[in-house]
């Protein structure tokens, strides 16, 4: 039905898509996997019209089409569900659903809000979401937003007579397990009407949902696997071009921590509206993992350790004494390093180069009386580029132009080179390809060996289990259960989920 034939796309210096063939049949769910930089997002952008192919052709039911913009793609029944934050938060749900297609509700130049609300309710029913369409989007939870996103794409049903192709870009990254299940069952139902292209880093989900899986590497499709033949190992092998270490999470490198010393002590700490009555100790060499759903208070705890949140009650001690003021400077001064989830916004400064980013948190170490010793900065950057195998042409490269994994390495290098020994990791492997993930896992182990304590909010439960010495399960801001996980004696997925929900 929908076909790409020998599609080519080049950017200055990059051959992003190399003669890609891609097809999807009516009612089919096609998975698309590949490492970061393999060309997945470029391919998707070509499909939904954000990019135009340089070579090859796109056909729908045999007819050649060419999209100048996403709008034209939509007119041919191609819609895109973006990662979580693609709804405009200051608009109502119904405005978001019909954004760009308000004309159908306009009579004599006036928007008929009632008609739009009714139509929006119809769309929301399709995704089984029972909310008032006039709700301002910022008041919704992330999961609800994801469903609204899907409802929005499903307006194509009414608008387009022919077949639909819906792209799902990492739709599950912010969803809890049961929400994922709901989404999947919805998608399966909807195959009566539409075909889906499903992009995710979570291999298990791709395997579960897809009829066929396209594997991409270096801008080319290296394999197409049918659902029944799909094996995680084989696919990962194709993606990475090598075998994935059986000991993915580096469990064999896990060493016992030093329980005599305490880096961070939480004693019945609460932050109003975020979490309450949390206690734990973090020891040198320990990976302490906070597990819970979105909104369970995980991030707020990280931010409290860093000094960005002020506890409303209880005491927080970092290296033996509590903060006098809640700000990040004091945290950094005591050796706390924060690797935020929003890497591009909070992790690196887009617009500053590699060495500038690496010394940002520790400029004092590279300056005399406020005057920078730039030579030393560069030397530091070179050392860490080598040590962490950061892929950058030189130290002058703008960090905004690096790939996600390399950006993350720069962030980690920033803290480690500054001697931080309490490292807060918020989704450190989010959006990274397998190779980069393994590098991060290696670094976590190395940091532990160096005596650093790590508080981790992991991307997946497997990751949490694999990496941690200690797991705290949280639910709605309250402590549920503590697990100790020494190598070979780790809690199971089921144990955790049981306490999370």
């Amino acid at each position, binding site marked *: 039905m929908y076909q790409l034939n020998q599609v080519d796309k080049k950017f*200055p210096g990059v051959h992003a898509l190399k003669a890609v063939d891609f097809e999807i049949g009516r009612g089919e769910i096609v998975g698309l996997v590949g490492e970061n930089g393999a060309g997945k997002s470029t391919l998707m952008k070509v499909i939904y019209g954000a990019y135009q192919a340089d070579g090859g052709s796109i056909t729908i039911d045999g007819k050649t089409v060419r999209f100048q913009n996403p709008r034209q793609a939509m007119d041919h029944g191609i819609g895109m569900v973006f990662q979580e934050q693609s709804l405009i938060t200051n608009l109502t749900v119904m405005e978001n659903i019909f954004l760009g297609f308000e004309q159908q509700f306009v009579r004599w130049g006036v928007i008929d809000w009632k008609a739009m609300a009714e139509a929006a309710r119809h769309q929301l029913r399709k995704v089984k979401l029972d909310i008032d369409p006039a709700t301002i989007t910022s008041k919704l939870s992330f999961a609800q937003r994801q469903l609204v996103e899907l409802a929005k794409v499903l307006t194509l049903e009414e608008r387009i007579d022919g077949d639909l192709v819906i792209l799902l870009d990492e739709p599950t990254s912010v969803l809890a397990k049961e929400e994922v299940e709901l989404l999947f069952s919805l998608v399966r139902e909807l195959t009566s009407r539409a075909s889906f292209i499903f992009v995710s880093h979570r291999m298990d989900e791709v395997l579960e949902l897809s009829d066929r899986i396209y594997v991409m590497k270096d801008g080319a499709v290296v394999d197409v696997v049918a659902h029944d033949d799909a094996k995680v190992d084989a696919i990962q092998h194709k993606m990475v071009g090598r075998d994935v270490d059986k000991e993915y999470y580096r469990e064999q490198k896990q060493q016992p921590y030093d329980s005599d010393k305490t880096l961070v002590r939480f004693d019945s700490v609460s932050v109003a509206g975020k979490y309450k009555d949390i206690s734990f100790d973090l020891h040198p060499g320990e990976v302490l993992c906070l597990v819970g759903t979105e909104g369970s208070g995980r991030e707020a705890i990280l931010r409290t350790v*860093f000094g*960005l949140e002020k506890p409303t009650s209880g005491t927080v001690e970092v290296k033996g004494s509590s903060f006098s003021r809640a*700000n*990040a*400077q004091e*945290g*950094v*001064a005591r050796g706390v390093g*924060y690797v*935020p989830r*929003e890497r591009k*916004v*909070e*992790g*690196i*400064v*887009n*617009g*500053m180069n590699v060495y*500038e980013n690496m*010394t*940002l*948190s520790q*400029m*004092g170490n590279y*300056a005399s009386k*406020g*005057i*920078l010793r*730039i030579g030393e900065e560069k030397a530091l950057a070179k050392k860490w580029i080598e040590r962490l195998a950061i892929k950058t042409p030189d130290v002058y490269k703008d960090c905004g132009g690096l790939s996600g994994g390399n950006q993350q390495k720069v962030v980690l290098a*920033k803290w480690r080179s500054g001697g931080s020994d309490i490292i807060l990791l918020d989704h450190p492997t989010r959006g990274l390809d397998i190779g980069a993930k393994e590098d991060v896992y290696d670094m976590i182990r190395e940091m532990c060996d160096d005596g650093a304590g790590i508080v981790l909010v992991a991307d997946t439960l497997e990751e949490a289990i694999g990496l941690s010495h200690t797991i705290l399960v949280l639910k709605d801001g309250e402590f549920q259960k503590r697990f100790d996980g020494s190598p070979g004696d780790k809690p199971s997925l089921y144990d955790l989920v049981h306490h999370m929900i």
Partner: protein
Amino acid sequence: MTIEKLKPYLPWITLVVLVLLVGAINPSFFNPTALLQLVADIVPLFIMALGMTFAIYIGGIDLSMQQVANLVTVVATVYLAQFGVFVALICIGAGFVIGAVSGWITTRQFVPSFVATLAMGFIALSGARFLSGERALSMNAEARDASFGWMFGNTAGVPHELVIAGVLLAIAWFLQSRTTFGRALKAVGAGELAAVASGLNVDRIKIMAFALSGTFAAIAGLMFSVKLSGGDANLANGFLILAIVAVLVGGTPLTGGVGGVINTLVGTLIVVVIRSAMVYLEVDATMQQMIFGIILIIAIAMTIDRSKMRIVK
């Protein structure tokens, strides 16, 4: 790719093209001493623009600079006799404090700098009007020459104003590119949240940036006051918009983190060339304003580097 490499030099190229254009039409423009004098005369404007660069570099704007300069002309004139050369310290201190207060209102009270600095400007203007007794004041010529005569005049054919401007530019450049403060400014301008998450004291950095712009405004006002040997609450009017234009034309966009003081140097020169071209090319009096606007659009269109701007707002 070649165009990519040219980008950082576009402001320079624009400047050279403009100079050649004016010179081609009227060759008398190329008189070196006259050009030197031309540049020397815009020094107060340039200093003002230098200060504005700091505010714009962190993604804000300082609309109080003109009124700070007005206030300083009055302060300098009123207290010159009493404090002599040390009146400069009072002036600079006043500029610093006003700028810091603007910065505090912006960062701690979440009032956008556009409005905060505009309002602080009104307060400075009130001060100037009060202190001047609503009159144009003039300096005692002897006291002026004794304290600040060194600001003007020539050494080996180089006007002292240019030396002062050069020194200030060097200081500003050093601050921007060789100090932790300058690095922090860049981080705040390009990615404020990341700067916070790296443990920088972002509020203090921003307050300092506005304090610096206030300080430079005060220096500009002081020089202007000495040059004109007097002060009143309106003396520096007309500086503000030109200073902003100079920064923008130089290629420091309002988004922050890009550009810098060297860009401002080029921008100021471009503005000055455009302005004196009006005189050299005998542009009709009623057309000057319009032509200034059109050339401005062309100049900005040529000089801004759009590659760093994700969305053009």
